[in-house]
């Protein structure tokens, strides 16, 4: 099948979709709801391209080329479609990419990760993270006005996590331990990239979180655990999106995590309803309801039917393996 992509002739293989042919020929087309070799249906429209003969915007992930097709992957309309699609998805994405405390720390301390270690009882690991931000025993927090505590989301529910107190506690406990003062593992990586923000908690969410979060530090752990492989963030950053222009009105409950297997989590507020987990599990994940309120759910009795590969497929941090601990350990 002979087609043209951005005026370059490309020979598409039998049963090869546009996105496969284009990527093989070296054209970059982003995609969220498509994963090579996985069952899928067009949903996200990030992979939009323009069929120059009809002028139509089409999803390259499911369209099969026809002889003589001419495709545009770079034009204004294509870019606008992709941008808007991302903006729309982000307007319904109630999640923080990074924890507010980490973002505001003047010394670049990854506060949230440090607190994760603390909550897991890994004092030494917590100390290492602190040491990476400022050489111990000179704890810079003593003179700091603590923007981290002011930014703390827990503060909007009852009162902020006592971050400085916890840092002091860790440092005192670990004072005798031989701490690795290796530097360089510095701050959170994502600060420069796109930042999704959660927005305000509803009253119901406040009550729920107040009642359910009872870790030693009381930290809500706002930072996205799926950070590493979030394509939504990657593309938003690449396309220069600062924030969605649409006022977020979402029905997804923020920070509601559900353990769906050993070390495997599902967080619906981060789901973009692409359906990859639905189409690639047998009697596992499924859709509930329709339209804007449509959700991806995993009925309790179906938990046995899924495995960790779905976390790899998920384009955002909605399904993730609890690797955070492993990373620290």
């Amino acid at each position, binding site marked *: 099948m002979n087609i043209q992509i951005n005026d370059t002739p490309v020979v598409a293989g039998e049963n090869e979709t546009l996105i496969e042919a284009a990527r093989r020929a070296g054209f970059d087309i982003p995609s969220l709801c498509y994963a090579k070799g996985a069952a899928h*249906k*067009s*949903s*996200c*429209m990030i992979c*939009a391209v323009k069929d120059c003969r009809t002028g139509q*915007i089409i*999803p390259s992930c*499911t*369209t*099969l080329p026809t002889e003589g097709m001419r495709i545009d992957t770079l034009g204004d*309309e294509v870019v*606008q*479609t992709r941008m*808007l*699609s991302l903006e*729309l*998805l982000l*307007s*319904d994405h109630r999640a923080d990419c990074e924890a507010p405390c980490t973002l505001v720390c003047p010394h670049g301390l990854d506060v949230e990760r440090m607190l994760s270690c603390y909550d897991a009882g890994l004092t030494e690991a917590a100390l290492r993270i602190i040491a990476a931000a400022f050489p111990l025993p000179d704890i810079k927090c003593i003179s700091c006005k603590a923007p981290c505590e002011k930014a703390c989301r827990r503060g909007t529910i009852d009162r902020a996590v006592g971050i400085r107190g916890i840092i002091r506690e860790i440092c005192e406990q670990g004072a005798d331990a031989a701490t690795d003062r290796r530097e360089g593992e510095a701050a959170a990586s994502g600060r420069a990239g796109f930042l999704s923000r959660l927005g305000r908690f509803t009253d119901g969410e406040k009550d729920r979180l107040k009642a359910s979060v009872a870790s030693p530090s009381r930290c809500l752990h706002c930072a996205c655990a799926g950070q590493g492989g979030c394509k939504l963030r990657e593309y938003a950053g690449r396309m220069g999106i600062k924030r969605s*222009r*649409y*006022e977020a*009105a979402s029905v997804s409950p923020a920070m509601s995590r559900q353990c769906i297997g050993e070390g495997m989590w599902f967080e619906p507020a981060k789901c*973009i*309803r692409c*359906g990859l987990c*639905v189409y690639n*599990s*047998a*009697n*596992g*994940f*499924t*859709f*509930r*309801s*329709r*339209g*804007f*309120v*449509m959700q991806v*759910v995993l*009925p309790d*009795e*179906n938990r046995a039917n899924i495995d960790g590969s779905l976390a790899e497929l998920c384009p955002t941090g909605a399904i993730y393996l609890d690797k955070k601990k492993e990373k620290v350990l």
Partner: protein
Amino acid sequence: MSCTCNNHGEPNDIASRTDAIIGSVGTSRSMVIPLLQALQAEFGYLPSDALKRVYERTEIDGAQLVSVSTFYTQFRHIPLGKHQIRVCTGTACHVKGAGNVFDAFIRHLEIPEGEISTADRLFSVEKIACLGCCTLAPVVQIDEKIYGHVVPGRVKEVVDDFLQSLSEEAKEESRKAKRRAAGEVRLGMGSCCMASGSADIYKELQTASAQLGVEIAVKPVGCVGVCNKVPLIDVVSDDGSIHRYPNVKAIEIKEILHRHFKPSGYLKRMQNNILGHIDIFHTDITWNNVVWKSEQERTGLVSRFLAAQKHISTEGFGVLAPLNIDEYIAHGGFEALRKAIASPGSDIIRTILRSGLRGRGGGGFPTGRKWEIVASVGSRSKYMICNGDEGDPGAFMDRMMLESYPFRVIEGMLIAACAVGADRGIFYIRSEYPLAVTRIRTAVELCRERGFVGANIAGSDFSFGISVFEGAGAFVCGEETALIASIEGDRGFPRQRPPYPAVSGLHGLPTLVNNVETLSQVPYIVKHGAEAYGSVGTESSKGTKVFALAGKINHGGLIEVPMGISLRQIIEDIGGGVEGGRKLKAVQIGGPSGGCIPAELCDSPVDFDALTQLGAMMGSGGLVVLSEDDCMVDVARYFLSFTCDQSCGKCTFCRVGTRRMLDILNKICSGKGTAADIALLEELALNVKRSSLCGLGKTAPNPVLTTLKYFRHEYEEHAAGLCRTGTCKDMVRYVVTPDCIGCTKCAKACPVDAIPYTPYEVHTIDAEACVRCGLCIDECRYRAIRKTGLKENISEYEYSN
């Protein structure tokens, strides 16, 4: 988990009833929708124990059960009240204030916020997309009983009447008639007619004829289209002359019959004469009674309503009994089928191609082309589906045709199947149309008995079976690929095309999907030829189109007009002009996929391409007339809230995009919008239209885009804080002017006691408590209550109260 086995002596009720249903419906994955429908019919909702049983006993797994049972509107997971009140929120009802009616029911029945049922579970109240009785708007259905023209002030009356009718039921008396009279009485029995009391009229006809001692043949016929004049009866006298009585009341029946049919026996005649006279002279009602009105006065309007119409789809209207197959055959029925069977399929397809027939479901794709593609695919087996999933709020022509002309649609389907070589037929009909489902089932059975359906039809080697599938309530299933997905037992997610269903459709077989109205035009074309058909209509749009004419119009109803007629002709000549002598503002055509055409462009012809050029589309055939009292921003918001609710949710632009558009419209309608919001709305609308994948998403922005194009000033006024018509409740407050004489009528009418009872004083309205339902304005004879803007600077604007 509770035990569901039957081994404990105590049979588990839900489990055994569920098992019985599974036994009769089937256990395969594709049976999930019929199975859930049967369960709901049995239990009134879907009990979780029953679903569990289905999971255990069938191929259907948990994921599919959740996915399907939550996708379709029909399925309920919680039990409802004993009696269901359904408030129609179709377009016609919306513009006539259905929202206020719904609120009034909630208030009257004291249903707590967030609930749908009364505390004693006697009633539950819900909104429903469209009951298809647009000419009686606003309409409310309580169980099987339909109430028309329900205003908020009548809500109590309606509920009381319903409760009373419950106790009166069963008091049936039947008397034997003595003599069989020549002639007959024809009575329209479509859903609209039933809604406005045809059932009562039918009963009264029986009673009255018994009293007269004459057995009069009462023949229920299909919809006559004159919905604004129903119940309507035609009396065919002994001599064959026909007298038409529109808007008859039960109380008038006896008199009408008496006039046309002689009672048997001298004594009875005397008695009836005397009784008749007493009736006439001694009851108040008789002063408006039929006999005092001239024939011309009574039927003139109806004749004018019918004059500009042309009947192709509805051929034989008002004459044919819907389920009388002999009569249908006597009127030339199945002649076209015999002709089709006798000629090669390619000839029939060529005839359809030459006729210029285009799909009536909305898109307007040339029907002959579709047939050609299906016919060209080599396959041992092919499907033919008749799409009767009419979900458009404000359109009910498919329902009417299925109810009133079932044989005609079946014949069209048979011809199509014969031409393309299909052997399996499916009628896909919304389950909200129970009468249509029953009639088609019966009609198919009758056809089977006569050898028109089944093996070797009419003695030929053409064999074709027909089954009926009930749609479970999803507008998106009008899209053919979503429709196919739902028959296969999936969520109604549209599929990527190509491959088109014509090549690979239901269960992977070539599938021809045609709309009800399209098929009903086919027999005419085959019988009379492509040229005869092509002589009606315009260059690019041939034949006729059926519309549901409703909204602010004097005479609404179901009309069939030749293509090319102008919208103004429809409104003026057929509809008798705008209701209440108000000025025409716009015509909404094509429902949620269509657009609003402003009054100044209403001279444009009804034509697929002309309408598309205006930014609207033919759509399925809803035609809602809007007057200067209607707010166009609110109309756009209304349609968008419909499509947003009906979006299947698969793709981003439709799922999130329509919702964000609705958010912006809500903001604008609440008076908080800005000029930037209007720009954002327009950008989003254009992109949703361009980047959606199926027809629903691609057309959903049309109502917004056309109103932005033709009524942008109204959006700008809203952004400045003014809703001139006072429709957008958040932007108006009600004030009492000094004209008030203190008669307290408004205070009595107010459902929320926002007007203190202060006789002989100028009344006041508590703005906090006021729900702006408009009852006080309707009650006030002195026009002393007016709507005014919230913002100081706009109170000087004239509100068109």
